[in-house]
Every structure is written in structure tokens, then in C-alpha cells.
């Protein structure tokens, strides 16, 4: 049964993709059913996911394989252990809630068949990525996840910004993917096998040199940076907000961005064996942690705030891995998934009701959209790490570990705590409090969107009880809390809360005036709004370096058949000459 569950959990959604397309294309009635078909498939998948997680609550691991490319010693393998079983259950649950939510959110849109087929492919590829037992298989599904996310970001394909954002996501993550591909090929050439087991046993048995390990590790980190949107490969994530909101929730909470962190968690012993790799991971994480927090404070788009917040929270996971607590990072991944999915559902609900994403033009929604308000309040309390909600335990874990192993990272985590609290409560005050600038306050979203939100609200509120005391996670979470560290972070959270309260609730006009008058504040705000100039930098590199090179390269192309085939003939003669000399 376990063997079947481990395969079915990803084969089922993948094989349902063509059926979703057929059902949707068959008739007009089918277009309405396609959404519920996706819900049903993912619900069955969720049963398998939970079965796996329940069976592998201990860290026992097993592998089941079937031949794929015998020549390269590659087989389709699934690996069932604590990490993959837990993550598959987590991905299934969040995807189920998000797909139920999107049945309500996407109602009446065009192209729903494409939407639900891609969602099924997306979820199935992510589950397959998590269950994979070798690097080649992981790389295959890694690419599929990237392609699906690019297509879904560009879902509204009549909007030029959406098409651009999808293309941007595809191209920027490509840099990371190339690095991962090089890492996979390097591992294959060194070890003649790409399974995680052989790589990790080679690292622990010291059969590969320290230098080789570090090269592989650096390539893997760059690969993970692309997928997990770490600075400087993060520029696609804020633009990805052009996609439908359920897709944003899926990308940020359940699937896409978690793939990079998962890759490092999977290869954690390799990173642990080298202090340099751990330090590099910490540095990457800390930069993104502060960058995301700072940009989120300035951003005026509700969804962009959450996108920058994701960059920051993923940075915290990288810091967790870097300070040598993979379990803390896993817990952070899970809790981030829950509260970020909830926050995105609320943003989608507000967008669905008002059609607005600009926080400055929203306000006073507290009175009519009660469930959304409660959901967002709980989500940002969890995000800020206020005890005892879901986010607190993982943050405290990473913070207390980093306090002993890397004090500089610990101080920066504290600063980011202030930033997190400020941007979270800023969004809350701007959207739900204050004077409404809308002509008429909107009503709450339909029940089909409220039910997943309510479920996630309860999960963020009470999930920690199950996670900490029911041994649902495959590792012991019950740690003795150090009251001193909790107290220190509470002081910083309180400082952030006070700043947000003064700046964006009690004295909003004073803040606005200050940001319109004082020149340094104006330029700071502009700098943060532009995402610290990364986009401008990439655009400059493109127009100054890449475009001229491409132009001059295209001059070689004459467009004449005779010249082209003469060049081909010359190249063939050279190859033949080299063959004759037995150089190749």
C-alpha cells in the first residue's frame, strides 16, 4: 500500500491533466465541471499524501525504483522518508484549499480549461519533485514546475503586463536552472550516479574531495536561489503578481518557491560538511531577509507587499539552513505556507470584491469583510512571530539556534522582525482600517472562498498544538523555550507594532506629509519602490551589453542560402579533418 501511495500521489494528478483538458473542451457544461474535477483529483491525492505522512511519521526511509534510462544508470525512483512524506501531505492540503478557493475566485473567467489543466500539472510536478529520489528526476520536474508557473502567471494573456511577467519568471529562473543542470551533470560525471543516497554517502564517506563538494554545493545554492527567489534572482517574484491570485497563493505557499528550499534540505548533509557552504547560505538568506522586508514596507500594491514578504520569509529559511538547523527551516517552510496562503486568499478576496490592489485607495473594509479581516489579522500575527501562533515556533527556533552559532545573523533576524511587523500591520491598517475611499463598501466573498480561508485561519491559530504535541512532524518540535530569547524578540515585535501603529494608524497624515516633504525620505521611498534598482540594473546590462552583441552576431547571417551552406561545408570539412587526425 505504501508503495502504491508513494507513486499515486504524483502520478494521479499528472495523469489527470489530459482528462481535465478533455472534460473542459468537450462541452460548455464541462467548462464548469473542470474546476470540480481538479478539486476531486487533488482531494484523492491528499488522501494518499496524508497516508504517506502518517505512515512515515518516523524518519525511516525507503526507496522504490523502476528503470528509466538504463544506459545512464538512471531509474524512476521514489523516496519516501520523513521530509518527502511530510511535504507531500503539506503540498496536497494547501493545493486542495487553493483549488477550492479558485473555483469561486475564477468563476466566469475565460480559459478555465487551460487554468485547471495547468494547475493539476503544476501540483503533480511539485509532488513528483518532492518524491524524486535522484537528481535527474528532480531536475525534470523542476523544469516542469517552472514552465507551469510561467504559463499560469501569464494566464490573463490579453494583458501585455501578464505576458511580460510570465516571460520574466521563465527567463530569470532559467539562470538558476542552468546552474542546477550543471550540478546534476557534474554529479553524474563524478559519481556515475545521481541518486541522493549515493551523493550523500559519497560526502559522508569522503570519497569526493572537499573542493568537489563545495563546487556542487555552490551550484545547488544558485539553482535554489532562482526557484526560491533569493536576491539577486528574485526580480520575477514581485512581477508574478500579474497572475490570478490563487496562482500566486499556490506559487508562494505550496509549490514553486518551496522547491529551492526543498533541494537544499534534501542535500543538507552535503551543506553541513562544509562551513563555507553554510556561511554562503546564511549570507544569501540574510540579504533576502532584509531586502524583502524593506521593500515590502514601501510597496503600495497589496499583492506585491506579500510577494516581498515571501522573499523575506524564504530568506529566513535559508538562514535556518545556514545556521545548521534544517528542522527549524522545515518548520518555517510549513508555517510560512499556511500563513502566506491565508494572506494571499485575503488579498484575492479583497481584489475580487473591489477590483483594487492599491492599498492607498482601499480602507475601512473591516466592517463589511469580517472573515477576510480576521483571516488577515491572524496571518500577519503569525507572520510577525507573535506567540503562540504558527509562525512563532519556527522563527524562535531559527533565532535561538543562530544566537549561538552566528550572532550577526541573529541580530539581523531581529531587525527583520521589526520590518515584518511594520509591513504586515501597515497593510492591515491601510486596507481594513481608516476611512474608506470607495464609494460603497463591498460585501464579503462567496462561501466557497470563505471556507478555505476559515480553515487556514484555524490552522494558523491552532496548528501549532498539533504540530508541537501530536508528533505530526517527523521530528521532535517540543523544545524547551528559552524565555530570554522569546522576550528579546517580543520587544522587537512590540517596537515594530508601535511604529506601524503610529505611522500608519494614529498619525497617518503626519507620515504622508513627511514622505512628501523630506527629500531623503522621498528618495528612500522611491529607491525601495523600485526594488533597490535591480530591474534597472538588469535592463542596463541588457541594453548596453547583450543587445549590441546580439546585433553584431546577426550581421554574420546574410540570409543567402549559398553562403550559409558554404559555411556548413567548411565546418564539416574541419570536423572531417579533425577526425582523420584522430583529435576527436
Amino acid at each position, binding site marked *: 500500500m505504501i508503495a502504491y501511495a508513494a507513486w499515486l500521489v504524483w502520478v494521479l494528478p499528472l495523469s489527470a491533466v489530459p482528462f481535465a483538458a478533455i472534460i473542459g473542451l468537450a462541452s460548455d457544461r464541462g467548462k464548469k465541471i473542470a474546476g470540480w474535477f481538479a478539486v476531486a483529483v487533488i482531494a484523492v491525492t491528499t488522501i494518499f499524501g496524508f497516508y504517506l505522512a502518517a505512515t512515515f511519521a518516523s524518519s525511516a526511509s525507503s526507496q522504490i525504483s523502476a528503470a528509466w534510462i538504463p544506459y545512464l544508470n538512471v531509474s524512476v525512483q521514489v523516496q519516501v522518508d520523513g521530509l518527502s512524506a511530510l511535504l507531500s501531505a503539506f503540498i496536497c492540503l494547501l493545493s486542495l484549499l487553493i483549488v477550492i478557493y479558485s473555483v469561486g475566485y475564477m468563476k466566469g473567467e475565460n480559459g478555465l480549461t487551460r487554468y485547471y489543466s495547468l494547475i493539476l500539472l503544476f501540483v503533480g510536478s511539485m509532488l513528483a519533485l518532492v518524491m524524486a529520489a535522484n537528481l535527474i528526476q528532480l531536475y525534470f520536474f523542476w523544469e516542469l514546475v517552472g514552465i507551469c508557473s510561467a504559463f499560469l502567471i501569464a494566464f490573463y494573456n490579453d494583458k501585455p503586463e501578464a505576458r511580460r511577467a510570465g516571460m520574466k519568471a521563465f527567463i530569470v529562473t532559467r539562470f538558476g536552472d542552468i546552474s542546477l543542470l550543471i550540478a546534476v551533470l557534474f554529479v553524474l560525471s563524478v559519481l556515475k550516479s545521481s541518486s541522493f543516497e549515493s551523493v550523500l554517502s559519497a560526502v559522508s564517506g569522503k570519497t569526493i574531495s572537499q573542493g568537489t563538494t563545495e563546487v556542487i554545493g555552490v551550484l545547488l545554492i544558485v539553482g535554489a536561489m532562482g526557484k526560491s527567489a533569493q536576491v539577486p534572482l528574485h526580480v520575477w517574484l514581485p512581477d508574478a503578481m500579474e497572475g490570478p491570485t490563487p496562482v500566486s497563493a499556490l506559487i508562494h505557499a505550496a509549490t514553486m518557491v518551496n522547491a529551492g528550499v526543498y533541494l537544499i534540505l534534501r542535500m543538507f548533509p552535503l551543506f553541513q560538511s562544509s562551513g563555507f557552504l553554510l556561511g554562503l547560505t546564511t549570507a544569501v538568506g540574510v540579504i533576502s531577509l532584509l531586502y524583502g522586508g524593506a521593500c515590502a514596507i514601501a510597496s503600495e500594491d497589496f499583492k506585491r507587499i506579500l510577494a516581498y514578504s515571501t522573499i523575506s520569509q524564504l530568506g529566513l529559511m535559508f538562514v535556518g539552513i545556514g545556521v545548521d538547523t534544517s528542522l527549524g527551516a522545515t518548520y518555517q517552510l510549513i508555517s510560512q505556507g499556511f500563513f502566506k496562503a491565508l494572506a494571499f486568499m485575503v488579498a484575492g478576496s479583497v481584489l475580487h470584491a473591489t477590483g483594487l490592489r492599491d492599498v492607498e485607495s482601499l480602507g475601512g473594509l473591516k466592517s463589511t469583510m469580517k472573515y477576510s479581516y480576521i483571516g488577515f489579522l491572524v496571518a500577519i500575527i503569525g507572520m510577525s512571530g507573535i506567540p503562540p501562533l504558527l509562525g512563532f515556533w519556527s522563527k524562535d527556533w531559527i533565532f535561538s539556534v543562530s544566537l549561538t552559532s552566528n550572532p550577526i545573523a541573529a541580530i539581523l533576524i531581529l531587525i527583520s522582525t521589526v520590518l515584518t511587523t511594520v509591513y504586515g500591520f501597515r497593510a492591515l491598517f491601510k486596507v481594513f482600517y481608516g476611512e474608506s475611499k470607495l464609494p460603497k463598501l463591498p460585501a464579503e466573498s462567496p462561501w466557497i472562498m470563505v471556507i478555505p480561508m476559515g480553515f487556514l485561519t484555524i490552522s494558523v491559530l491552532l496548528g501549532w498544538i498539533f504540530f508541537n504535541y501530536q508528533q505530526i512532524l517527523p521530528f521532535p518540535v517540543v523544545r524547551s523555550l528559552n524565555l530570554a530569547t522569546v522576550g528579546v524578540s517580543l520587544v522587537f515585535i512590540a517596537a515594530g507594532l508601535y511604529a506601524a501603529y503610529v505611522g500608519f494608524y494614529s498619525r497617518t497624515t503626519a507620515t504622508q506629509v513627511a514622505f512628501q516633504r523630506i527629500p531623503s525620505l522621498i528618495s528612500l521611498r522611491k529607491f525601495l519602490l523600485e526594488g533597490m534598482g535591480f530591474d534597472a540594473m538588469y535592463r542596463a546590462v541588457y541594453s548596453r551589453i547583450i543587445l549590441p552583441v546580439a546585433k553584431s552576431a546577426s550581421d554574420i*547571417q*546574410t*540570409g*543567402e*542560402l*549559398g*553562403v*550559409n*551552406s*558554404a559555411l*556548413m*561545408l567548411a565546418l*564539416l*570539412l574541419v570536423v*572531417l579533418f579533425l*577526425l*582523420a587526425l*584522430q583529435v576527436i
Partner: protein
Amino acid sequence: MFTILPSVQTIFIITATILVFIGIGSVSYSKNLIKTVMSFQVIVFGANLALFSSGLGGNSIDFMSQTFVLFSILVGASVEAVAFALIVVVHKKYGTLNPREIRRLRN
């Protein structure tokens, strides 16, 4: 590469290589699209010869390769027919068959 004694197979393969090179060379030289298609056919003949000779090694003849050569000849003939049909259209539209004067891809 040429150190082995020239068996029938080797002679065939050398001939095939020469045919392919002649074909590519005449594609680059020809000023008439009909001659270009004929040069393409020379390349295809070279490839067919190489495929045919690959079945000759060893004691027995591999009939699979000969079957594929037949198949390839058929495909080549139909490709040629399509190419000539296209040439007719090109001649109607441009009034010339010189490939140097039909350059719409570049400017």
C-alpha cells in the same frame, strides 16, 4: 580512420561521404532553385548509401537497413515533389529562380 583495409563497406561509406560533400557544395554554388533541389537529392543519396552499407558488416546481410533505405528513398521522392511544387509557386510570385534574388528573410 583510413587505416583499415578498404572493404566493400568502407568504399561505400567513403563514396557516401563524398556524395554528401558534393551535394552541400553544389547547394552553395547553384544559382537555380531546381539545381538546388537536385543537390539536396545528392545529399539524400549519400545518406541512403551510408544507411545501406551499414547493413553489410558481418557475415549476414541486415535486411532491416535495406528496408529503411527503401523507405528513405520513398520519403526523398515525395520531399522532392513538394519542393518542386514550392518552386513553381516561387517562380509565379517572384518571376525568378535565383535564390540570391529571393531574400525576404533579411530586410
